């Protein structure tokens, strides 16, 4: 048992709390600054001395973003592409994970290694051949181009995550279906899918986030303003109105909402996904 009442001990506890406060400032101040700037007028953002709380609280930046159909289109594109990729990825990864988790077959070990190693392929290396392919198939500047390319990056993670989850489920359940004369396909849909919902949610969350954050491919494989996603929209905003900092901050807040909401609602799933690649 540790003694709690020596002066030295109390000093350590106080020092720890001071360090925790400093850590909090380091972690949260930049985000706080984004949030508070999004509610300021543009002149107040650079006021001297800086105002910690907005002196004249205003929603004008949000109104400017939400009232502009061009910017709303960025949000639609991001949600649409990320949603489509998530559905496809989860479906395809579920099948692969079922194969990995419930069967023994030749080449299983090397396929698994292949999938782990695809996580580290540099996006910039794939960008140039993708650009060549996308142009030659005439799908440059379309949703199809984005969805297909994102699928390549989300699939390996999704397979690893889903396989990990399916491995935690007891095999007796699906073997019972086989004893009753059912095929592995029936076992998958009748038994496995209903009890793997937590794994499916974690995989969907992570896939959605990967797509939502993607920048390089969206930048290169789309061109018209109506095809751009939120990250590119923010960059465009920066180029066009270099001094509209409150609008850039408002758009950043709106662009971060899905991630923040998912994190607050489903923290457990979120962290499962974020650390999936590493704790394998």
């Amino acid at each position, binding site marked *: 048992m540790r003694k709690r009442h020596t002066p030295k001990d109390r000093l350590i506890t106080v020092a720890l709390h001071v360090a925790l406060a400093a850590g909090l400032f380091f972690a949260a101040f930049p985000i706080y600054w984004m949030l508070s700037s999004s509610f300021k007028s543009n002149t107040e953002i650079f006021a001297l001395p800086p105002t910690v709380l907005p002196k004249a609280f205003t929603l004008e930046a949000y109104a400017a973003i939400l009232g502009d159909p061009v910017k709303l289109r960025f949000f639609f594109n991001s949600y649409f592409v990320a949603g489509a990729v998530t559905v496809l990825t989860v479906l395809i990864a579920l099948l692969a994970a079922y194969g990995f988790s419930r069967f023994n077959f030749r080449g299983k070990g090397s396929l698994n290694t292949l999938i782990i190693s695809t996580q580290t392929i540099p996006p910039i290396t794939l960008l140039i051949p993708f650009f060549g392919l996308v142009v030659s198939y005439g799908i440059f500047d379309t949703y199809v181009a984005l969805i297909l390319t994102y699928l390549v990056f989300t699939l390996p993670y999704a397979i690893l995550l889903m396989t990990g989850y399916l491995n935690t489920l007891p095999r007796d359940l699906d073997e019972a279906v086989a004893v009753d004369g059912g095929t592995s396909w029936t076992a998958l849909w009748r038994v496995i899918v209903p009890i793997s919902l937590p794994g499916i949610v974690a995989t969907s969350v992570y896939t959605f986030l990967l797509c939502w954050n993607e*920048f390089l491919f969206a930048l290169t494989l789309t061109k018209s303003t109506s095809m751009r996603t939120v990250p590119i929209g923010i960059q465009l905003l920066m180029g066009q109105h270099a001094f509209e900092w409150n609008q850039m901050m408002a758009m950043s807040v709106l*662009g971060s909402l899905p991630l923040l909401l998912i994190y607050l609602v489903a923290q457990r799933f979120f962290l499962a996904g974020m650390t999936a690649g590493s704790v394998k």
Partner: protein
Amino acid sequence: MTRQKRSHHRLKRAVAPYLYLSPSLLIIGLLMLLPMVTVIAYSFQNSAVLRRDPSFAGLKHYQAIFVDPVFWASLWHTLYFTCMSVVFHMTIGMVFALMLNSDRINPTLRNILRVLYILPWLFTAVIIAVIWRLLLEPNGVVNSVLMQMGIIGSKVEWFSSPETALHAVTFANIWAGYPLFMVSLLAGLQGIPKDFYEAADIDGAKAYQKLIFITIPQLMPIIISISLLDFIWTMQVFPLIWITTGGGPIYSTEVLSTYTYKLAFSSYNLSQASASAVVILLISLGLTLFYIRYQKAR
């Protein structure tokens, strides 16, 4: 079951896994392995992508890269950016994880702080870049606070002067990336058996001795795998640098990814860009082999 039926069943069991894996393998094969072969082919062609029947170029594009001083500068910046990021991600992640794991703080406070300390991780690279541009604007809050405190005499142009730009983007990246270490180490700390510390207490070990002889050795596998992954991923960072500095001023923050991107999509020299992309691929593959070996050995 008759014998025939049973062998039919066995055949189905043997084919089934390949069927389940086929959509994934098709996608990985067509959209990942094939493009990798393609980019290697491009790097040996003249006017790749741009012309229908490109001629063979030999090692010309590799030579062009290896004599380009900007390539070597990019390689050096990438190394600096990556090593500093990984070291500080690890240090900050470790300090935060140890602080949060201490039994001197109350559990509610711990849960709140854990959520808040993870915050930087939840933001997209583009948004992180925009936030840091606002903070580090010449007229921004960082400059005005530092001047108030007398640390700097005049406004510093953090992202647009060659002396500070690389440090500034590295700092932004350090801020954005430590939570991966923190979360993983926190999980690791909770997995260390309590008896280890109890035994050390009986032997009269001091706090720092417990840290050096129990905590760090127990966390070593996590530290090594996360460092390797973080190294590989940080090496490939593009949007943060693209949006804060675009590689400038005067190439002072050019890294391998921005260098390659500019070759491909600003100068439209896709062959030479492919050669540079292959170099990045080779470095990544080397590190990945190391990572997989390490994971298997564990």
